[in-house]
């Protein structure tokens, strides 16, 4: 958002309301989801979304590490969102920076809002999200991948968690920002929806919007999440139909 003092700002919205990649304001980037690509994990998913590539794996319920985080009445949901060094234009130093730690925290809280954690006291459910190639919206791609991986692992949940970012670009509210829109747009608002209840379990915002714009953004985002939701369910159906026995066992 608002790269103060930056060199040049591209035109983000043309006269016909088309965006930098030709999309309409309410149009998602291409999204493909594959459930179960990793055999070592209890559950996994690979998401390609626009130019994002994100892998997620779930381990658990299993013993808690470190021990003192163990809770006697429920499972601990731990999340690690990490970016590969080569996933961004300027090489990122390996390891979790502050941004990754914050995102790990809000994603863990989102998942904990839907997982039936009381069913697995004294255990840990670990969600690992690796961003291999990034182009804006990686935390939403991570939520989608992590959520499908949790389902793939057979973890009981209220619902899947579709997620998408809405933003403000060239003065208009737009769905699913890509990198240039995120860098030079006016606002970015990622969210994750519980489709069944219509409530949001992740919501962040940066930039500036008026109250009416915000209302519009929430509506656009919820609609986007519902589209993504269908793709998530389809990915899980594909997984089960390909390997029914393995899915059963997981």
């Amino acid at each position, binding site marked *: *958002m*608002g*790269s*103060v*003092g*930056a*060199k040049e700002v591209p035109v983000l919205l043309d006269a016909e309301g088309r965006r930098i990649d030709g999309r309409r304001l309410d149009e998602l980037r291409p999204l493909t989801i594959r459930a179960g690509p990793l055999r070592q994990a209890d559950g996994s998913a690979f998401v390609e979304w626009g130019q994002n590539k994100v892998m997620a794996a779930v381990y658990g319920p299993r013993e808690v590490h470190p021990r003192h985080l163990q809770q*006697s*009445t429920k499972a601990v949901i731990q999340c690690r969102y990490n970016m590969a060094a080569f996933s961004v234009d300027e090489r990122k130093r390996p390891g979790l920076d*502050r*941004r990754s*730690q*914050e995102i*790990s*925290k*809000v994603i863990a*809280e989102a998942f*904990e*809002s839907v997982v039936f954690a009381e069913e697995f006291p004294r255990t840990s459910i670990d969600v690992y999200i690796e961003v291999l190639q990034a182009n804006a919206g990686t935390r939403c791609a991570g939520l989608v991948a992590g959520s499908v991986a949790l389902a793939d692992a057979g973890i009981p949940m209220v619902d899947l968690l579709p997620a998408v970012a809405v933003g403000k670009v060239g003065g208009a509210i737009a769905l699913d920002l890509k990198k240039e829109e995120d860098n030079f747009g006016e*606002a970015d*608002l990622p969210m994750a929806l*519980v489709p069944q*209840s*219509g*409530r*949001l*379990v*992740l*919501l*962040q*915002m*940066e*930039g*500036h*919007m*008026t*109250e009416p714009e*915000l*209302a519009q953004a*929430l*509506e656009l985002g*919820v609609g986007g999440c519902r589209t993504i939701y269908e793709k998530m369910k389809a990915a899980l159906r594909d997984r089960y139909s390909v390997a029914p026995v393995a899915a059963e066992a997981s």
Partner: protein
Amino acid sequence: MSEEVTAEILQTHILDLAAEGRRLDGRGPDEYRKVSIEPGFVVTADGSALVRLGETMALAGIKLEVGKPFPDTPNAGVLTTNAELIPLSSPTFEPGPPQPGAIEVSRVVDRAIRAAETVDLTALCVTPAEKCWTCFVDVHILGHDGNLIDAALLASVAALSGATIPLKRFGVGEADRPLEIHHRPIECTFVRLGDTIVVDPTFDEEHAAQGRLTVATDEIGRVVAMQKGLVGAFSPDDIKSVVRRAFVHGDRLRAMIGRNGR
């Protein structure tokens, strides 16, 4: 185990009260605690303010140093926000590297300051691509009775509002000059307690809460940052109502900082 039982009894009690629109400390759902702002608390800082929300206490100090602009923003200064949740402030904090909670406070405060264009970063450029001012906003939490984000941003904005650029100390100019402030974002935090959403939660209310929502607004009617935290969920209608309330509280708190904060 007995601690867990006590915690559960307290949580139930807080939720029961909330269902009747009441709170443990007697406040109404939309009532903020008593706020005090003491600017200039620390003379070694280039700007500072001590803020109290009830027993929550945040001390912000500003330091400016001459540094180098980032390659991708050659005409702008650099702003860095850091919140320290030191173990002095709460029996629940332990010494060690910053925990996710402290990082979250730092980043949410940072986003609000940045998105509201609180500080004119281009005015902190000295020589493009070569020399600029780096503005450090350091927040020391001295007392934790809930709602650290609001306290930290309020202290930060009050400290920035009264800050000077130490031109003399760095041999960059003859006389110091005030740091120019564009906008004054105010963060306002709410938690869900059952069907009730209350403002300015205490420590105990945060532990009983089913979701936390922070909304930062500025004085020209913009929402500049939001953060949902903790386990729990909010509907779009909840969010819109919370945003409305955040504007009202924001205007009132902003007035306490005053025009020049000094």
